[in-house]
C-alpha cells in the first residue's frame, strides 16, 4: 500500500512539472476573474468611494459626513439592532434543529430518503415566495396559524402576527428557521458521516451511554463542520433582505426593518446613493468582522 501511495505521489509531481504552465493557467482563469472583478470587486470599491462623497453639503469633495449622519439616524440604528437581534436568535435555533435532523438522518431507518428530500424543499424554494406563502398563513383574519393555535387552545383570540411589535419579528425568525435549518442539517450530516463508526463502538464497550458519546465524541469531531455552517448562515442572516421585504415590509413601525432593507430604501426609494453607500459599507464591515471571528476560531481548534 505505501508503495502505491509513493507511486501516486511521484506521478503527481511529474504531472505538475509536465503541466505547470502559467500562461495557459491565466488564460483559463481570466474570464472568471473579469466577471468577478466587474460584479463584486469593483462595485464594493466604488460603494466605498461613494460613501466618502458628501450627500448633502458641498464644502468638500471627500468627507466622513455620511458616516457621522448614520450615527444620528435613529432608523439606521434600529435597523442595525434588528439585524443583530434577528441573527442572534435565529442562528442558534437553526443550529439546534439542524443538529437534531442531522443526527436523525445519520441513523439507518426506513423512509430516511423521504425525510432527506423533504428538508431540501424549504431551502430550494425562493425565499421571496416562501415569505409570501407564510404571509398568508400568518394572516390575522383567515390564517391557518391562528386557527391552529386557537384549536389547540394555546391562544384565545386571533393574533395580529405581522402587525404587532414582538410578534412580527418572531414570525420572521420562524420562517427563516423553517427555511434554513435543513441547509444546516445537510452540512452537519456531511460532517457526521466522516466520524468513524468504531469510535462509538469502543466507547460503548467502555460503558459510555448514548448521551456521553454524543457529548465526548460527536460534538468535538463535529466542531469544524459546525463552525463552517455557522459562518455561512451568519453571513446570510446579516444580509437578510427578501424575507422582511415580502413578509412584513419592515413593519410594524420599522421593527423588522433590517440594514439591507433600509439601505435598499435609501438607495432606490429616497435615491440617496452616497448616503446609502455608507450603510452598505457598514454592513460589509460588520460581516467581515463576524467572518474573521469564525475563521479565527476554526484556526484555533485545528489540530
Amino acid at each position, binding site marked *: 500500500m505505501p508503495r502505491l501511495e509513493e507511486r501516486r505521489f511521484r506521478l503527481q509531481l*511529474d504531472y505538475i512539472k509536465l503541466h505547470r504552465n502559467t500562461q495557459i493557467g491565466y488564460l483559463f482563469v481570466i474570464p472568471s476573474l473579469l466577471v468577478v472583478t466587474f460584479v463584486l470587486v469593483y*462595485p*464594493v470599491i466604488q460603494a466605498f468611494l461613494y460613501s466618502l462623497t458628501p450627500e448633502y453639503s458641498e464644502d468638500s469633495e471627500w468627507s466622513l459626513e455620511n458616516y457621522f449622519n448614520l450615527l444620528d439616524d435613529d432608523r439606521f440604528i434600529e435597523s442595525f439592532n434588528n439585524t443583530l437581534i434577528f441573527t442572534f436568535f435565529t442562528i442558534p435555533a437553526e443550529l439546534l434543529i439542524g443538529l437534531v435532523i442531522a443526527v436523525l438522518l445519520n441513523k439507518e*431507518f426506513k423512509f430516511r430518503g423521504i425525510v432527506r428530500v423533504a428538508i431540501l424543499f424549504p431551502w430550494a424554494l425562493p425565499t421571496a415566495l416562501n415569505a409570501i406563502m407564510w404571509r398568508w398563513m400568518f394572516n390575522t383574519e383567515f390564517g391557518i396559524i391562528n386557527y391552529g393555535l386557537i384549536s389547540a387552545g394555546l391562544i384565545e383570540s386571533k393574533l395580529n402576527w405581522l402587525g404587532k411589535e414582538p410578534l412580527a419579528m418572531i414570525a420572521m425568525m420562524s420562517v427563516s428557521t423553517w427555511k434554513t435549518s435543513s441547509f444546516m442539517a445537510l452540512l452537519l450530516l456531511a460532517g457526521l458521516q466522516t466520524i468513524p463508526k468504531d469510535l462509538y463502538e469502543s466507547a460503548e464497550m467502555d460503558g459510555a451511554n448514548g448521551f456521553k458519546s454524543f457529548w465526548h465524541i460527536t460534538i468535538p469531531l463535529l466542531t469544524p463542520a459546525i463552525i463552517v455552517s455557522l459562518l455561512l448562515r451568519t453571513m446570510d442572516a446579516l444580509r437578510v433582505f427578501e424575507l422582511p421585504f415580502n413578509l412584513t415590509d419592515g413593519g410594524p413601525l420599522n421593527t423588522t426593518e433590517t440594514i*439591507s432593507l433600509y439601505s435598499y430604501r435609501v438607495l432606490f426609494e429616497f435615491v440617496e446613493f452616497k448616503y446609502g453607500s455608507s450603510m*452598505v459599507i457598514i*454592513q460589509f464591515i460588520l460581516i467581515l468582522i463576524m467572518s474573521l471571528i469564525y475563521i479565527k476560531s476554526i484556526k484555533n481548534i485545528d489540530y
Partner: protein
Amino acid sequence: MQSKIRTKFLIYFLSVVVVLVSFFPIIWLFFTSLMPAKDIYAWPPNLFPSPGTFNNYIKIFNNSPELLRYILNSTIIAAFTTVTIILFGGLAAYALVRIKFRGSFAIMLGMLAVSMFPNIAILPAIFIVFKKLNLINSYPSLIIAHTGLFITMAIWILANYIRTIPFEIEDAAKMDGCGPFGIFWRIILPLSKPGIFATGLIVFIFSWNEFPLSLVLLHDNDMRTAPVGISLYPGEYSFPWETISTATFLSIIPVLIITGIFQKQIIGGLTSGSNK
C-alpha cells in the same frame, strides 16, 4: 430491548414531524390555489379544497399573462447564467486544480473572500454601471450579475470534482499530443459530468431564487423575474390571494421538480465543499 423500541419510536416520530413541517406550507399553498375566493376568505379556514377547481389557473392563463412572462424571464436568465458559469468556472477550476500555475492558490483564496461580499453592497455601483451601459431592463445585465455572484461558489464545487479525476488519463492524452484546451474539452469536461451536473443544478436554483439584484436591474413589468414579479404583484393591484397563491405555486413548480428528481446530486454538490 425496551430502549431500542423507544429509540425507534423517537426516530419515526421525529421523521413524521420533520416531513410534515417541511411540506405543510407548500401543500397549503397548493390547496389554496385550488379554492375559489369565497372558500379562501373563510373562518374557520377550509382545510381541503372541496370541490377543488382549476379556475384560478385558467384565470391566470387568460387574464394575467404577465405572470407567465415572469416565469419565462426567470428560466431564460437562470439557463444562460448556468451555461456561462459552467464554461468559465469549469476552465478556471481546471486551471486552479491541475495546472497549478504561479498565484493559483492566491486566486483560489481571493475567490473565497469575495464570495463573502454582501449582495446589497454591490447594488449602488452595479446599478449605475448598467444604467450607463443602457442595460437596465435587459437580460444581459442580470445574467452578468448572477454569473459574477455565483461563479466563485461554482468554481469551489467544480474544483472538488476535478480533483478526483486520475492524473494518468490526462497524461495519456498529453502523450497523444492533446493541448491544454483539448484536455479540458475532451477529458475533463466529459469525466466530470456528474460534478458539472450537480453544480449546474445548484447554480440554476440560486439564479432562479435571487432577489435583490433582480429587483433592481429588471424592474420593468415585462422584464421581472418570477420572485420579483409575484412579490410586487400584490402592491400594484388589490390583494387577490387566489391569484397570488396560484402564481406562486406555478412559479415554484420548476424548482419542485428539479429538487425532487435530482436531490442526490444537489446534496452531493452542496456538501462537497464544506469538508475540505
